[in-house]
């Protein structure tokens, strides 16, 4: 069968299936013919390899049976309308809808109950706990005569604690200090901000939650007059260990000098920039939309970064790097030698990556159009350099490879559709 005959049969016999599906299948088969012909096969050979169209239709139908598929079924039913079957289907559908509705109602009801319970719980707790109630109130009171900075000092122990900071549009600085308790300090740049953005504390045994909530109502009008300039400083004692979660919408975040390597740091931000300096952590996990990210110094066991358009630059040594960006560029500079083996996993759509590593490393990079430049220095083991891009260029340099490595498997694996590859092994 020639290509034309095959494709015509395919299109005819797939009539009635979902249009988008048919389009995808025909585009795929076109490409198969193209690749086959380029590889020296005849049209007949490719057609034979593709198998009979009837077989495909049979297979498609057999996969459809379990779940009625929209287009085809509706079409075929229209052509041979069967009242009895229609009634059966309708009553089945009715039962199904009622079943789902019942479930929805039930879950809404339990959800509401839970919300009510927690609200009641919060109220009763506030009433019984007079100190936190006062604190709560104090931050709520708007008084122009008061100083513009507000403080809160947490009361309890600092090991295995969760700190949650929700800064909204405020900048957040978190640093290690010679204090004994966790302290929050809010510096309002203007009186207006203090009025509009009160902060709340929820302080329990296992967690301290700090939250700035924009005040709703008439006063919110002022928020449109100018941008805010609020700065939250969180001081953490040296003995602290636990988990820290910081989130902001537009505020920048800066974290410094955390030194307990069991501590986990989670950061979420929309457009705020993030800086992390000299921190020893077990985990750093960030999720950003457009903010840039800079990591410098310290030591982190596992770094997990995801950003849409923010750039990432780091020189922090880590056992495991996982970076995912859409258009952000990635710059990793790990030229300071370390004892342990490291792994880098970088995924971008159009972001470029520059990776410089001294010592043993595994690198896994994939991108659609991002370029990669990779430099490995004094690397004995690189058993898994895997590079995969569609149109990006890449340049790989392996320098100063020490003689007599331990016989580990080595492999540089790169794949590209239209990019250039340059590999330099010295």
């Amino acid at each position, binding site marked *: 069968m020639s290509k034309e005959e095959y494709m015509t049969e*395919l299109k005819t016999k797939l009539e009635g299936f*979902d249009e*988008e*599906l048919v389009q*995808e*299948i025909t*585009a*795929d*088969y*076109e*490409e*198969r013919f193209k690749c086959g012909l380029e590889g020296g096969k005849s049209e007949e050979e490719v057609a034979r390899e*593709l*198998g009979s169209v009837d*077989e*495909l239709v049979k*297979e*498609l139908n*057999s*996969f*459809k*049976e*379990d*779940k009625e598929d929209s287009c085809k079924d509706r079409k075929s039913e229209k052509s041979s309308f069967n009242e009895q079957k229609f009634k059966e289907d309708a009553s089945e559908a009715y039962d199904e809808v009622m079943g789902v509705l019942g479930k929805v109602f039930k879950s809404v009801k339990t959800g509401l109950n839970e919300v009510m319970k927690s609200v009641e719980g919060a109220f009763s707790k506030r009433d019984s706990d007079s100190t936190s109630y006062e604190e709560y109130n104090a931050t709520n009171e708007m008084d122009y005569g008061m100083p513009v900075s507000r403080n809160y000092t947490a009361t309890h122990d600092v090991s295995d604690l969760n700190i949650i900071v929700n800064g909204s549009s405020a900048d957040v600085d978190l640093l290690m200090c010679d204090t004994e308790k966790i302290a929050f300090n809010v510096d309002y740049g203007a009186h207006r901000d203090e009025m509009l953005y009160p902060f709340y504390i929820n302080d329990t045994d296992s967690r301290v939650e700090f939250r700035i909530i924009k005040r709703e109502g008439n006063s919110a009008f002022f928020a449109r007059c100018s941008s805010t300039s609020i700065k939250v400083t969180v001081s953490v004692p040296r003995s602290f260990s636990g988990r820290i979660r910081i989130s902001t919408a537009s505020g920048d975040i800066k974290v410094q000098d955390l030194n307990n390597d069991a501590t986990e740091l989670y950061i979420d931000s929309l457009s705020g920039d993030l800086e992390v300096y000299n921190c020893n952590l077990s985990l750093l996990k960030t999720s950003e939309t457009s903010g840039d990210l800079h990591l410098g110094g310290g030591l982190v066991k596992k770094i997990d970064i995801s950003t849409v358009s923010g750039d990432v630059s780091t020189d922090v040594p880590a056992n495991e790097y996982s970076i995912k960006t859409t258009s952000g560029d990635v710059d990793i500079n790990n030229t300071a030698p370390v004892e342990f083996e490291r792994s880098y996993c970088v*995924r971008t*759509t159009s972001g470029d990556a520059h990776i410089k590593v001294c010592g043993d490393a595994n690198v*896994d990079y*994939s991108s*659609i159009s991002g370029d990669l430049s990779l430099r490995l220095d004094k690397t004995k083991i690189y058993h898994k350099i895997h590079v*995969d891009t*569609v149109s990006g260029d890449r340049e790989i340099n392996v320098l100063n490879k020490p003689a007599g490595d331990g016989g580990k498997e080595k492999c540089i694996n790169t794949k590209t559709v*239209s990019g250039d590859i340059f590999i330099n092994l010295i």
Partner: protein
Amino acid sequence: MNSQFKKGALELCVLSQLKTMDRYGYQLTDAVSKQMQIAPGTLYLILKRLKEDGMLETYLVESDEGPARKYYHLTAKGKEKEEELEAEWFEFVKAVDLLLGKEN
């Protein structure tokens, strides 16, 4: 092969192919149909289902050699599903192996 069984396995194959990178349709069907006896077109039905269930997302990338290519991307939900299916798969294979006496 039993179609339900095959369908489940194919879902896992497709999801796992997307775990490390986004691929477009032909890349996917080529990889799978090389290893398995299946009409490549069938996979598009599976891809469609997975997309409808929120396991996959698609985006178009212009191509020099013809129409724009539709790339498939694994969502967080899809990733979770993949891990779940993979674990189930290995457990299943282990059980079958045991029953067939291939493992002691």
